[in-house]
């Protein structure tokens, strides 16, 4: 498996941001009926989800998180040498949204900026890329987030009741004095690409009236080929077969015994899947984070958001031994065993909306 070891890099802070608009099980009941909605919620463990209003994008949420982090860390704009934005829901086909964010954050021209298109595995992939680039020196911002609800059919129960929108920012810097090491394991099974995809609206099958027409599909659902399609059974099968071994392999790589890990933070697909994976990987319930009840499955932002909501106090005050594991769309997977903390962990940032012209330096209305 791809991966390897990164040393001499520390995570200085993690911030997560969500939109201040929510959908609850009661809202879903209007579309799918009370019994069905309750049944889905019982399986997914999602009670409410943050759903971005029109015009509020993943980049806006990540911008709010990054601005807060830079301010609290006292990082100057000039000190940041790398900006990476991991998303599947960019602002534009081109340019890379990282370039737009570079401008909005007022970073210097000495800063490299690029996007990475990955979802549920994207946070750990982002940490891998960013930490390797920072090894040589300097500071970097890793922005990771998605507004998946923007590409979901509201009449497709396999996805419409599950996802939340969120963004995150992680600050990394070279720290030759640090004794901590990050051990990564990453992989891909591209044969699974068709099980979690938006089939049309890109260049292979461009946007058209026909492709964007919602039609009846399996299970009484309705969606277009420009909406997100998820084959839940295939995704579950992939996760069941891949994730327990991935966690074992990253623990072996780090030479850590399972019981010495302070917390396992997995991507948060659904409570049912998480509980099954935890049993299969024999992870102790007390050290296994489940944090989607109030936010939903937030795709690429799920791991940093879970760290913010479930581990903030401990990470702010102590060093923890963590295993972070992302898996999904691609199919793609990545896991890292790392020590981190104490680090800056602001509470979840709630973003009301965006003011002004998005193409220029816009002001975000932020609640803390």
């Amino acid at each position, binding site marked *: 498996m791809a991966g390897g070891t990164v040393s001499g890099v520390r995570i200085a802070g993690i911030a997560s941001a969500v939109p201040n608009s929510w959908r609850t099980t009661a809202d879903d009941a209007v579309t799918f009926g009370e019994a069905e909605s309750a*049944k889905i919620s019982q*399986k997914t463990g999602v009670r409410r989800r943050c759903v971005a209003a029109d015009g509020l994008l993943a980049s806006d949420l990540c911008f709010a998180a990054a601005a807060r982090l830079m301010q609290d860390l006292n990082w100057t704009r000039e000190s940041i040498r790398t900006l990476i934005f991991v998303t599947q829901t960019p602002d534009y086909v081109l340019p890379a949204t990282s370039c737009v964010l570079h401008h909005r954050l007022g970073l210097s021209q000495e800063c490299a900026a690029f996007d990475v298109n990955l979802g549920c595995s994207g946070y750990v992939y982002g940490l891998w890329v960013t930490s390797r680039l920072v090894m040589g020196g300097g500071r970097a911002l890793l922005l990771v987030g998605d507004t998946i609800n923007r590409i979901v059919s509201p009449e497709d129960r396999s996805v419409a009741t599950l996802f939340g929108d969120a963004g995150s920012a992680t600050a990394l810097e070279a720290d030759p004095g640090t004794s901590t090491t990050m051990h990564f394991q990453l992989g891909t099974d591209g044969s699974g690409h068709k099980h979690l995809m938006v089939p049309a609206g890109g260049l292979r099958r461009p946007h058209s009236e026909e492709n964007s027409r919602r039609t009846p599909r399996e*299970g009484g659902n309705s969606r277009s080929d420009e909406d997100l399609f998820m*084959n839940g059974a295939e995704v579950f099968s992939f996760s*069941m077969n891949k994730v327990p071994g991935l966690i074992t392999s990253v623990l072996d790589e780090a030479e850590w015994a399972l019981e010495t890990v302070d917390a396992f933070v997995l991507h948060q697909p659904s409570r049912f899947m998480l509980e099954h994976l935890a049993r299969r990987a024999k992870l102790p319930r007390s050290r296994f984070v489940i944090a989607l009840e109030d936010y939903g499955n937030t795709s690429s932002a799920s791991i940093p958001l879970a760290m913010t909501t479930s581990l903030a106090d401990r990470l702010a005050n102590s060093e923890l031994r963590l295993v972070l594991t992302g898996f999904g769309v691609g199919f793609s997977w990545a896991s890292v065993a790392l020590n981190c903390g104490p680090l800056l962990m602001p509470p979840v940032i709630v973003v009301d909306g965006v003011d002004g012209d998005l193409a220029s330096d816009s002001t975000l209305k932020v609640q803390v």
Partner: protein
Amino acid sequence: MGKNQFLLSLDELFELEPGALTGSETLDSLDGWDSLAVISLMALVDEQFGISLQPRQIAECTTIADLMGLVGDRIT
């Protein structure tokens, strides 16, 4: 695991009274047979038999007995 025990697990999965399923039922006739049930079945079989069912295998089943057949001789 015995056949009856597996049927009882399926009763629970379909939210039916214990003993309701006999094996001859067609899946289409069962209200609870949806994508969530498929995932629950995969988890159940994985935990109780250590078998990873492929979604394609499950899609080819038309009756409860077909589902039991996927577990094969693990059911005595």
